[in-house]
Every structure is written in C-alpha cells, then in structure tokens.
C-alpha cells in the first residue's frame, strides 16, 4: 500500500467534499418552508394514535437541512457500539454530541448548530449567539434563551454546583457578563475579545452546556425554584444527602453521557430509553430532533443505539472480532488492525483506515525544569535535543510497531491544518547517528570505552523515561528508543508505570524524560488547547516544561519563570486568545510552530499512523477516509444522524 498516494488522495477528497457540503448546510437552508415533512414509521404510528404531535409541529420553524454524504437514507436498524471502563467520549458521536456550534465536514471550519449564527460586537468584546426559532427539547418543551439563563444564573454562578466559574468564560481573569437579549438571543461581554469562544462552543464545553439547560425539568431539583419540603423528600427518596448530589445525578454528570437518567431532556438525535443496567444502555430516536434531509425526512434515519460498556479493552476488541458491533471508531488501535481485519467478513463489518489528531504517535519530552542540575543544563541545550531527534530511526519504528505505516514527524499539527509548515514537520527527523554523536561530542558529553557517554562531572549519562502503562504501542516504542539512544551512547532507563503515578511525577517535577501520545494537534483544538506547543496547563501531560506551566497558570506566583523562547511562546498564546482576525491567528500559530521546531521542546516519532474504524458492511453515508479523535468529540463532523443501514437493518444484526 502506498502511503503517499493514499494520503494525497485522501486530503483531496476530504477537502473538496468538505467545502461543497459545508456550503449547503452552513446556514443556507433550502426552501424549508415549502417542504413536506415525513418521519419514521414508528413515530407515524404514535402520531396516528394521538400520542405525539404531527412531525411539522415537532420540528423548528426552519429545521436544519442535512445533505447526506452519498444518498438519501432509509429508516431502521440499530447502531451497536462498545466502550470500555466507562470511558465515555468514545461514544459521543454515536449519541451525537450536538455542541452549540459545530465542526464542519472538513474537520476544521466552525459552523452553526444549535445556535443558528453568532457574531462579535462591541469591538469584539461582546459575543452574540442567535438561537433557532421553535426548537424543542426531546420531551417537546421549547428550547430558548431562558435555558441559557438557567445555566448561567443558577448553575455556573451557583457556588454549590460550581465552586469556581468555568475558565472557558474567563478572559484576563474576569468572568463574562451574561445577558439574555430576547427569547432567541443571548450574549456574553468580556473585558477583551474572547477569540477562542466559537472554537470552545463547537467542542467539549459546547456539547456539555445543554445538559444543564433544560430548566423546565431541572428546576424541580434546584432550591432556587423547588419547594424545600418536596426537594428534601426527593433527596431522601433517591438515597442522597444533599440537593447538589441529587441535581448532579439528574443532570447525569457521569462522563457527560446520558447513561442513567431517562427523564433528562436533550437535543440529540437519540435519547436514553433504558439507563445503564448491567453494562448496557439503549437510546432511541428523539422524536423532536430538529434536522431533516433535503427531501424532508426527519432525521436520524437509524432507530436506536445499543451501547455496551465492556469491562476491559481486550474483551471489547474480542467482541468486535466476533461481529457483535457495527460502529466503533475510537479507542481502536492500529496495532490491532490484523485482528479486526481478519474477522471483518465473518463479522459483517468492514475496517476503514482514518486519521487522528496526532501530529506524531509520541512526543518525547526532556524536562527543561529537571531537578537534577546537570541534566537540566543538558536538556536546555538545543544540540542535545537535535542529537536525540536524529538518533531515532523512525523508519524502524514505523516498520516494527506500525505495520510499515507512519511518516517521520515532529510534534507540529496534522496534515491539512492551516498552521502546518511542512519544513518544520520534518526538520531533524533524518536518521543520522554520526551527526547526533558529533553534536553530543560537541557538548562535551564524551563516550567511554564501552561507548556510553558521561556528563561533565564524570557520572554516567543516564536518563529515566517513564511510560504510562497500557497505551498501545508506547512500550514497544520505548524499547526501541532505549536501543536507539544506546547507539549514540545515551542510557535511557525506561520504566513502565501507572498513569496516576505519572501524574504524581509531573506534579512533583520528578520527570526526567516523558513520553505521551501527541494528540490534540488539529485546528479544532490547537488554538485553544495547545498542550504540547505551549506550557500553560500544569494539569495536562506536557512534561517538557511543567514548572513553566505552573508559573503561567498561577500568574507567576509559583513555578519557574520562563525566559527567551519559552516566555515568547506563552505570550503568543495570550495573543492568540484575544485575536479574532483569522489571518493573524494563522500567523501567530505558525510562529508558535517555528519556536517549537527551533527548540525541539517536543521530539516526535512518526505521524500519520492511521486508526481503524469499524463499520457494518451495509452502513452508509460515512466517509471512506476521515478524522476521528477527541478533537472532533469522536467524529461528530460526519453527522451520525444522516447515516443509515441499507435495507433498514444491519446485515449482521442478531436474530
């Protein structure tokens, strides 16, 4: 298989398809008013029986029209999917996360979704959202500004439910001022333009806010509204001791998924009909879903989602291989591709190879704040990192660990990103042990008789690398790195430890060399969450400058003050936060990329390693090649609601 061919073709397809369809769905409704709406047979029966209002009354005044990827679908069938150990986000796009804004088919552009449009006013300091007229919650109650008001004034600013306000609405340390302009308009005013807000509203937080919004339902659990005696009775009945416990339970805080509370209204294509019980949860179509296809069929096409929470990754994968699922697309690993592919035909599914948000499979991070003074000095010398980067035989990593796939890549951004500069991606990625050795000699790290180098004080140059347990491929890459570095005389002491242990190591600044999956490197996350490129978030997995991050997050109160390029990259990030102009944002982003490759704070291994996606053989309207990752909340950019099973049911469905 030719990687280059497929990549180029892939980009072409995804970009052209994206541009075309985005234009259609992006706020340019077809003549929706003239449309005759129709619905799934199950719903039609309910309407006929008088249990449900007619479809035209359930839809908003101007329903969102979704142009299907390939063909108009047919109703029926069930998505069968699986997650493990309650890690929720894998399933987000099965439910359809429906953030307030969303990411387009091109995996980059921000589009309207729940909100019909948005704009900046007041010199950029005010952000205005316009909502859709006549949109309804899944129980038929109207959705509107009053729901935002409930969230803002009774959840976000309620000190019991939210002891501190969400940072997404804080700029320069000041919380926004919220205003409900009218029934369909809300706005926030900040002390400076909040340029990343559209990005955030199309991402995780944007998909979470609606859970706290159905005020008509939630008021009964909130002391601001509920009768105290009634509320106490409800708390006692549910076995809780305080009202916030009950409230959080009713909002289904668990992983942001609607697993438990069937009564909580939502705005998603599906709503829970059977709560999580013995690891299985079922969601049925939402009769009030607000999207239709160009022929006026109310979406989603598919009837039901059946999700199994497996107790472990191995058994989930065994269940895939046994043909028990028809839609699994995150937390699959390319290293397991042979397993999925071998059983595809018998299991009535196919395996597609998509891309992730990883600019490299791993980022290798030498701690620039290392406690060991000697090591710190070495790690802060860019020659050392260049030498380390050139000592890595990336082709071997690709061949041995990734079945021959993968292109040498530094930790930058994924192909197709507007921030990407090709030259930066490949700089210092050529395998050259002689050059690496020369750089190390240059630094005075001379090799002894056994080929191993010593530090200036004569002690052995031994660096400890902590790898998190259970990340597919990481242990093997660690083993190869140990071998490659030994080749140039550097002893890498590789330890495999629990994830929580690594957390503790970072918090205590005990990391010497860290390694992590270099994800979140896409247009939909990098601008607001550049975890690798900028040390700003001490609570994440950046391990090259943990004390710089502490310094940034604490406003200079603790941690280590950065100098030079590190200080500059933090300033650039600050600038990005308040810059609305797109061209200027790209410039800033690329400057951050340049500083990164100049300093090699992160060293990447191989990028563009595909991720397998398992889909039922007659599952339609999903792209042949696409992107999936947390960056797109799974892959909600591909509109699960317009997918369908040809023939109305998965061919592998259990009888």
């Amino acid at each position: 298989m030719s990687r280059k061919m497929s990549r180029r073709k892939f980009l072409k397809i995804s970009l052209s398809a994206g541009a075309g369809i985005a234009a259609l769905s992006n706020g340019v409704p077809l003549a929706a008013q003239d449309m005759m709406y129709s619905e799934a047979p199950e719903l039609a029966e309910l309407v006929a029986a008088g249990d449900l209002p007619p479809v035209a009354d359930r839809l908003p005044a101007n329903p969102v029209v979704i142009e299907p990827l390939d063909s108009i679908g047919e109703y029926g069938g069930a998505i069968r999917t699986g997650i493990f150990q309650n890690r929720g986000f894998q399933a987000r796009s099965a439910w359809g996360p429906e953030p307030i804004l969303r990411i387009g088919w091109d995996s980059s552009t921000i589009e309207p979704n729940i909100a019909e449009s948005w704009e900046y006013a007041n010199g950029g300091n005010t952000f205005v959202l316009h909502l859709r007229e006549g949109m309804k919650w899944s129980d038929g109650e109207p959705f509107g500004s009053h729901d935002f008001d409930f969230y803002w004034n009774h959840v976000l600013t309620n000190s019991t439910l939210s002891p501190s306000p969400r940072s997404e609405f804080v700029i320069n340390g000041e919380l926004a001022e919220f205003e409900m302009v009218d029934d369909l308009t809300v706005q926030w005013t900040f002390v400076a333009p909040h340029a990343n807000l559209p990005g955030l509203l199309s991402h995780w937080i944007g998909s979470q806010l609606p859970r706290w919004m159905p005020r008509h339902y939630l008021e009964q659990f909130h002391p601001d509204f509920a009768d105290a005696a009634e509320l106490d009775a409800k708390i006692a009945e549910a076995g809780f001791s305080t009202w916030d416990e009950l409230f959080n339970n009713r909002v289904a805080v668990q992983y942001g998924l609607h697993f438990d509370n069937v009564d909580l209204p939502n705005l998603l294509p599906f709503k829970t009909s059977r709560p999580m019980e013995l690891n299985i949860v079922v969601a049925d179509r939402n009769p009030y879903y607000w999207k239709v296809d160009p022929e006026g069929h109310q979406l989603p096409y598919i009837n039901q989602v059946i999700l199994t929470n497996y107790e472990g990754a191995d058994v989930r994968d065994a269940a895939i291989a046994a043909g028990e699922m028809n839609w699994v697309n995150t937390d699959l690993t390319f290293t397991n591709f042979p397993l999925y592919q071998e059983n595809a035909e018998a299991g009535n599914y196919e395996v597609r190879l998509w891309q992730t948000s990883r600019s490299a499979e791993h980022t290798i991070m030498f701690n620039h704040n290392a406690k060991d003074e000697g090591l710190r000095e070495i790690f802060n010398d860019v020659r050392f990192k260049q030498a380390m980067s050139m000592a890595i035989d990336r082709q071997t990593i690709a061949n041995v660990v990734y079945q021959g796939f993968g292109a040498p890549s530094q930790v930058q951004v994924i192909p197709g990103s507007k921030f990407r500069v090709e030259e930066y991606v490949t700089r210092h990625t050529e395998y050259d042990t002689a050059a690496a050795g020369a750089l190390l000699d240059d630094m005075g790290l001379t090799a002894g008789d056994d080929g191993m180098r010593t530090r200036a004080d004569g002690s052995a140059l031994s660096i400890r690398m902590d790898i998190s347990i259970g990340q597919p491929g990481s242990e093997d890459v660690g083993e190869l790195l140990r071998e490659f570095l030994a080749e140039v005389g550097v002893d890498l002491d590789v330890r495999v430890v629990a994830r929580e242990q690594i957390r503790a190591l970072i918090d205590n600044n005990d990391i010497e060399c860290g390694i992590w999956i270099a994800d979140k490197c896409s247009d939909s996350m990098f601008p607001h969450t550049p975890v690798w490129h900028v040390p700003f978030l001490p609570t994440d997995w950046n391990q090259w400058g943990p004390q710089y991050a502490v310094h940034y997050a604490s406003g200079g109160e603790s941690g280590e003050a950065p100098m030079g390029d590190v200080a500059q990259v933090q300033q650039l990030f600050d600038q990005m936060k308040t810059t609305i102009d797109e061209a200027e944002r790209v410039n800033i982003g690329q400057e951050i990329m340049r500083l990164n490759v100049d300093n090699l704070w992160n060293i990447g291994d191989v990028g563009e390693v595909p991720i397998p996606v398992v889909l039922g053989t007659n599952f339609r309207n999903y792209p042949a090649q696409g992107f999936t990752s947390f960056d797109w909340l799974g892959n909600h950019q591909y509109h699960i609601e317009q997918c369908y099973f040809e023939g109305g049911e998965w061919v592998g469905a259990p009888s």
Partner: protein
Amino acid sequence: MISPALFLDWECMTSYIIRRFLQMIVIMFIVSIVAFVVIQLPPGDFVDAYVTTISGGETFTQETIDALRAQFGLDEPFHVQYLKWITNVLRGNYGVSFQHQRTVADLLGERLPLTLAITFPTALLVYLIAIPIGIYSALNQYSFLDYVFSFIGFIGLAIPNFLFAIILLYIGSQYFDANVAGLFSPEYELAPWSFAKFLDLLANLWIPVIVVGTAGTAGTIRVMRGMMLDEMRQPYVETARAKGLSEARLIFKYPVRVAISPVLSTIGFVLPALISGTAIVAIVLNLPTTGPLLLNALLAQDMLLAGSMILFLSLLTVVGTFVSDMLLAWADPRIQFE
C-alpha cells in the same frame, strides 16, 4: 485411641459466640479505618484520577480541579472525611459514588445478584469436584488417574486465569459460536427477566465458572490429597483396619473429617475472596459483577464506593471466618471453644 468426642457445652458455646460477636465489631471498626487509609495510599485522589483517565481528553484548569475537589469533599482533612463516611454508613447511607454519581447501594444492588449467581455455583463446584478427587487421589496414590488429575490440576494452576479466559473466549467464539462477552446472548440482553432468559444465563455461565473455578479446584485437590495421605498413615487407621472396620466406614469416619480441616478453615472467606479476587477475570470476560466495580473504584480512588465495598466484603469475611471456626469444631471435636 481416640478420645470420645467432647460433648459440646452449650453454655460455653453461647458465651463464646457473644465474645466473638463483640470482637467482630472491634475488627470491623479497625478494618474500616485501615480500608480508608489503604484506599488513599496510592498517589493522588479521585479528582486526579478523573482528570488523568476517566474524562478522556478533556483538559482541566487548576480552578476546575480545586472546585471538583471541594465538590467531593476531598479538600477536607482525612479524619473529617472518615468520620463523615462512617457516621453515614452507620445510619445505613453508604454514600454516592464519585464516578457514577449514583448511590453505592444502587450500584451494589445492580451487580450483587449476578455476582452471587457466579460465585455460588463456582464455590459449590470447586468443593464437589475437588474433595472427592482429592480423596480418590490419596487412596490411589501414583495410580494413572492420580497422575492425570495432578497434571490437569497443575495446568489449571499454571495458566493465569485471564489468559485462560481469553483463550476460552477465542475457542468459544471461533468454534462454538458462543457469545463472546457477558452473561447473556444478544437477543436476551435487552429482554426483561423470563425463564428463557434465565436458561440463557445458565448456558452462558459455564465459561466464567470454569475459569474462576479451575485454580481453586486444583489447589483444593492438592491440599485434600496431601492431608488424606497423612491421615491414612496414622497408626489409628491401621488399628481400625485390624479391628475389621470396613474400608469405606473407616475412611469417612475419621481421616476425611480431619483431612478436610484445612479446607474448612478457609471456606469462610472463599466467597468474599471469589467476589473480589475474580476482578481481573471478570474484566477479561466482561462480567458485570462487583469485582470490576471494586477494581475501578480503587483505581479511580472513588472513596465512598471503594470504602463501602471493602467494608461489605470484610463483613462477609469476618462472618465467614466465624462460620469456618464453627465448622472446624464440628469436623474435629477435639478443638474446643476457647
């Protein structure tokens, strides 16, 4: 040779039971403190675990983390957290699981019945198979069957449970079209309880029972066999034989009752051990039992869920030990209540 069985002094026994009961309360109190300490020993707390693993990609600021910590009461000193928990437990309120945002009682109620459905047959099977085989092996030492049982038993001991489980899953799904994971076939997964669903459960129960039971069976066979061999060599057996006692009566009258004592002295905590000890197998086989719930609660440092579950298992064990002691006294009347 054998002194006549000491008659049980009922008065003595009642006072023994009362004494043991009081001791149990003290033990449970100590256990509750130790459990609370042990859960907190690994680095970090629930919020760390939430941020590092469970949330799956979301990024958190320090403020959010502090807020979460306050929400869960994790910013309070240890003894305050403990007192809060234990007073609630004494009032019958086991608290709310941090990870699930559901009450602990609710979560346990969902999983306990299935857990018992697996562990009871397993424990029963272990004893039904292991004790007769152990006796047989001892009586026919170095016979062909003895070697066969030894060999199979040791294979059972030597393959890790979860590898065994994965292999059985593979064989089951490739050659028998068995349901890969869980206790129900897909068509019954969503069905309400019925007799057909119950039969389906029984049909799917064999893999977990075999996997969980194998190691225990092999171990019990070895212990039983060894003890029987010892007992059979005791001079009294020869004497009894010389007196013309039939072989079967001779064996069951005394050697079996003595040989079984190591088995009996552990029988009390077989159940709790199966419930918690099979966590890893349950993960591999995707059994919605209490084991994985406990393990995940520990990994996530979900204090109240883990604490309450440990307390519950401890209670089972303490009661089990007591039952065990009673059984021991029954099997070997020479042991007195002290």
